[in-house]
């Protein structure tokens, strides 16, 4: 079905949005230099108009997908009339142009949310919106000039579309990009607050307080987004891995690492007023790394399983955009950060210093990931060979850094701000330390298979260390008049955040050390064994889906005791439009282990090559990420940000400031 003119209205809305973004960016800028409140006041309505226009544009593009309007080049390349309706919708962000529009819509959404926030002084708000406006102008120019999703193919309209990439036809992928973008783009808000603070020169702790909930929400979204991506890779790619150190994964990990550092550093700056310039730099870094990641994915400078359409013109435009955004903000930083001599003192053993250590480890990890990702590019540019570093490099550096981070993660919450007596700290941690070392290092590593492994011991020790110290902290927080109910949401948030991290470590430790992967030949009615489990191929069925044909295997799984625990039905699909084969794995999942069966290739009429994985505790990885994100949500809903008293405090600060 062809719907006349809808795309033209969409494109028109996009251009108007660009105009509005210009208003939002430039008028407040001029207003703040000429001290004209009226000009400053343009920021808010412009932000609202931009959001509305982008929403219209996005809805119109979605309608073109729903109505199968293949006169649009983008629809024709990424949809098909046989596609179920929900994949038609998610196909909107299935490729370059549409996902950019989603990126912009989310940026406008965050901007809209910021413009509604209460208690911000008008001038600060106008500056923040102006910075966000500039980001939006850059990206809108990119979309309008190089990546217009509304381009028509006329007059020869294709009869049907080329279908959505089968890899993306999966429920996980409906939600993965929006969540990830909510995270990436959310850091733009913190970035804007930081630049607005530099711009005005008002570097008190107020900006840290304003930025905190935004940073934490963006971080929570990014955490869930990355976890969902990892989960998707696990069951959809059919390789059974959950992290590949692929450039695109690294692109999401880098801002997550610095974002985590930023979240902690904002806490110090707000509570203690120290490390201000460091926190500002982190805010700039985090959003810059989001942009660098965006550039790496879209420009085609690196090869990746996620490769988007590559186009040198786009790459060049993006690089200019990156250079202007990051370069300008770092220049502003260098020029405007005053030589802040903190008047606050702290001793070497204090929460301040431990948090700084955490920050350094996270930033070093992030730089290391960046280096590893860019290494092939740098070597090639220097003309000294074509090498990529791959997982061994990342694992060798990342694992020790995270182990070190875990030690600080346990100590931090139990340490006081400013200064801590070693005797006092010892009193708090000795019990946790003893439990951890005895159980984690000496007892638990034997339990699973009766052998002691160094990496299991280290991993489990760390998990227990974070567990015990976190519970100790919670117990201390409960020793008030109100007891356990008196624990603040932000303290609970930290508890869950750290607990989640411990669960991730647990999952990683178990699955990396005890997991097993086997490639097997399975013949009908001839059982094979992996880790004591028996797999019997019972039947092979040929079936047809809406836009694919599939071979399905019926595999019975018996546990070591000989009882039938499940019948698994993995599939090998051929998506007919693109002629692309896809592996649909079947998983018998549990909290203690996953059993994972994927079809390889047909060997004879009644035998297939199959891949069987045994993955202990792998679910804990994603569960941990969800719990950590939940911690973030708890921290945002802390009464500090909503209660009357806090609002009054803010107003008091505002009156003093501006």
């Amino acid at each position, binding site marked *: 079905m062809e719907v006349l003119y809808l795309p033209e209205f969409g494109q028109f809305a996009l251009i108007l949005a660009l105009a509005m973004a210009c208003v939002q960016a430039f008028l407040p800028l001029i207003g703040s230099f000429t001290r004209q409140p009226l000009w400053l006041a343009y920021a808010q309505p412009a932000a609202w108009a931009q959001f509305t226009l982008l929403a219209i544009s996005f809805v119109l593009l979605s309608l073109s997908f729903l109505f199968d309007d293949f006169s649009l080049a983008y629809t024709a390349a990424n949809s098909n009339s046989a596609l179920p309706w929900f994949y038609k919708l998610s196909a909107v962000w299935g490729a370059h142009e549409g996902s950019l529009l989603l990126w912009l819509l989310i940026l406008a959404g965050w901007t809209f949310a910021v413009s509604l926030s209460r208690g911000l002084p008008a001038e600060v708000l106008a500056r923040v919106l102006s910075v966000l406006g500039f980001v939006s102008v850059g990206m809108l120019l990119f979309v309008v000039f190089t990546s217009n999703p509304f381009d028509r193919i006329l007059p020869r309209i294709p009869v049907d579309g080329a279908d959505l990439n089968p890899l993306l036809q999966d429920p996980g992928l409906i939600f993965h990009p929006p969540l990830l973008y909510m995270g990436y783009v959310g850091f733009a808000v913190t970035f804007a607050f930081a630049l607005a603070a530099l711009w005005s020169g008002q570097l008190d702790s107020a900006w840290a307080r304003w930025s905190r909930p935004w940073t934490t929400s963006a971080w929570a979204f990014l955490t869930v987004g990355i976890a969902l991506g990892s989960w998707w890779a696990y069951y959809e790619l059919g390789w059974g891995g959950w992290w590949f150190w692929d450039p695109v994964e690294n692109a999401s990990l880098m801002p997550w690492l610095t974002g985590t550092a930023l979240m902690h550093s904002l806490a110090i700056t707000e509570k203690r007023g120290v490390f201000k310039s460091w926190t500002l*730099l982190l805010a700039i870094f985090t959003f*810059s790394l989001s942009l660098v990641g965006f550039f790496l994915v879209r420009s085609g400078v690196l090869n990746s399983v996620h490769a988007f359409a590559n186009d040198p013109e786009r790459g060049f435009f993006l*690089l200019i955009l*990156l250079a202007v955004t990051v370069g300008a903000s*770092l220049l502003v*930083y260098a020029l405007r950060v005053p030589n802040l001599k903190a008047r606050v003192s702290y001793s070497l053993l204090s929460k301040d210093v431990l948090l700084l250590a955490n920050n350094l480890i996270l930033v070093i990890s992030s730089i290391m990931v960046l280096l590893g990702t*860019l290494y092939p590019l740098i070597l090639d*540019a220097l003309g000294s060979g074509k090498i990529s570093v791959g997982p061994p490099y990342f694992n060798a550096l990342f694992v020790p850094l995270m182990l070190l981070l875990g030690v600080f993660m346990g100590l931090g919450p139990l340490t006081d701000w400013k200064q801590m007596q070693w005797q006092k700290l010892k009193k708090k941690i000795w019990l946790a330390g003893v439990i951890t070392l005895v159980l984690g290092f000496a007892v638990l590593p034997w339990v699973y298979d009766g052998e002691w492994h160094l990496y299991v011991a280290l991993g489990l020790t760390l998990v227990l260390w974070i567990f015990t110290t976190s519970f100790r902290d919670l117990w201390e927080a409960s020793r008030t008049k109100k007891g356990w109910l008196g624990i603040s949401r932000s303290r609970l948030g930290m508890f869950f955040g750290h607990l989640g991290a411990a669960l991730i470590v647990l999952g990683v430790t178990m699955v990396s050390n005890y997991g097993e992967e086997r490639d097997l030949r399975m013949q009908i009615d001839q059982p094979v064994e992996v880790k004591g489990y028996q797999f019997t191929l019972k039947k092979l069925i040929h079936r047809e889906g809406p836009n694919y044909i599939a071979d399905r295997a019926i595999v019975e799984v018996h546990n070591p005791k000989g009882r039938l625990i499940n019948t698994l039905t993995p599939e090998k699909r051929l998506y007919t439009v693109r*002629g692309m084969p896809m592996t649909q794995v079947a998983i018998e999942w549990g909290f203690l282990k996953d059993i994972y069966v994927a079809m390889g290739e047909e060997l004879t009429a009644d035998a297939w090559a199959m891949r069987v994985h045994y993955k202990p505790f792998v679910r804990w990885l994603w569960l941990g990420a969800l719990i950590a994100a939940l911690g973030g949500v708890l921290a945002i809903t802390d009464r500090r940000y909503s209660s009357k008293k806090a609002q009054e405090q803010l107003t008091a600060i505002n009156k003093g400031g501006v």
Partner: protein
Amino acid sequence: MKRFLLFLPLIVFLLVGIFLYKGLSMDPSARESALIGQPLPEFSLPRLTNPNLLVTREDLMGEVFLLNVWGSWCPSCYDEHEEIVRMAQAGVPIVGLNYKDEPAKAFRYLSQLGNPYTQILVEEDGLRELAFNLGVYGAPETFLIDSEGIVRYHLAGVITPQLVDQVIMPEVQKWQKNR
């Protein structure tokens, strides 16, 4: 001195930016070819036109030729087909490797677009022979193999008119002369 330190992040970023800029003009897929300078792997594959006849590595030796990996399912193969025909007309022997395809569809493709190949080998989905050993991960991909059977050039992606005129044809002539 303190001021200078504050400029450090900017300087580092600009350095990274220079590498990114250089990266833009480089071809990432070229980076992958560890195979250049290596001999073409051994194989034994049926021909599309005559599946009973197996072709091995030795059968192809003796002249410089291009090995083009294609499939009727691959949209970009349609785009580059014209260029392949043009090179074939210029006298370059081109061996096709029909990859993960069905014979019926492959024949339809050739009857619509013409057959520029001197011969076409078939590697079905899942068969781990030539394409697998060459590290092919998609189509189209093109390899230049000299008369000694050494891989001399590799392109992952679409052959464009510029590539033919500026890179592939000069490479072919260079290795033909070296004989």
